[in-house]
């Protein structure tokens, strides 16, 4: 029960974010500058939280390969944030959130491309179909 409550609070916090971004964009700032502010504020705070929890010592475990992969993921993710903020500046929240949240489908697709042994089972196929039906409705409905 405790885990479910924590997970729900986290979901609500994530759900608030697009509306807050829209309010930020209404001040006239560009999505690029907005992304920079979000990261410039969040990264030091996250560092402080991890430092207080004593988890920053783990940084010493990073080898070059890990660092490169994690950095590459971060750069891809920040490009995603720029696109997300740009989309929010042009479209209603509901439509952007519906399209952007199809990401797990692309995770499944890319995971399969990277590793042909990756299995795609029936729930995944049904889920992917539902995502595309929902996407079509949200975009063209």
């Amino acid at each position: 029960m405790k885990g479910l409550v924590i997970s729900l609070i986290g979901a609500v916090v994530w759900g608030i974010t697009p509306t807050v971004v829209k309010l930020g964009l209404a001040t006239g700032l560009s999505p690029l500058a907005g992304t920079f502010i979000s990261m410039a504020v969040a990264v030091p705070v996250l560092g402080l939280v991890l430092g207080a929890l004593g988890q920053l010592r783990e940084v010493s475990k990073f080898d070059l390969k890990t660092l490169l992969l994690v950095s590459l993921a971060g750069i891809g993710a920040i490009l995603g944030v720029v696109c997300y903020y740009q989309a929010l500046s042009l479209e209603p929240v509901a439509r952007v959130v519906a399209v952007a949240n199809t990401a797990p489908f692309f995770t499944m697709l890319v995971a399969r491309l990277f590793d042909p042994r990756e299995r795609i089972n029936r729930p995944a196929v049904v889920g992917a179909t539902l995502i595309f039906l929902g996407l079509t409705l949200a975009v063209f409905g």
Partner: protein
Amino acid sequence: MGLLFALATAVLWGSVAVVAARGMDRVSPSVASFVSNLAALLVFLPVVAAAGELKGLASDWRPWVYFGAAGIFSYVLGRTLYYLAMAEIGPSRATAVSGVAILVAPLLAVILLGEPLRPAIVVGVGLVALGVYLVGRSI
């Protein structure tokens, strides 16, 4: 055009999850996330400066409040709570419940921004949420 950006978001976020997972076999997700975002910020800073976007940032405090809050909600609070939930109830359930965000976001946009909510979008969002739940459970 906005929808193409939203789709690009999904492709980028969906793809980086695979790259990130390959780099996270020896470190915890929270520290990997911090290093990942720090590296991205260091690469992103000169790009924003070159685009001339840093100039007006000091003159208005409002964007700092909104975008700063968005950064804290998304990267610090949301992610920390997600990792805590994963530790409590496992990744499948945590991922499934976190899908509630897809339903919360449009509701808040209607209440706080007065955005219109057509029935087709409501059904579409519901189907995406159900689809994400099923895909999330299958991974």
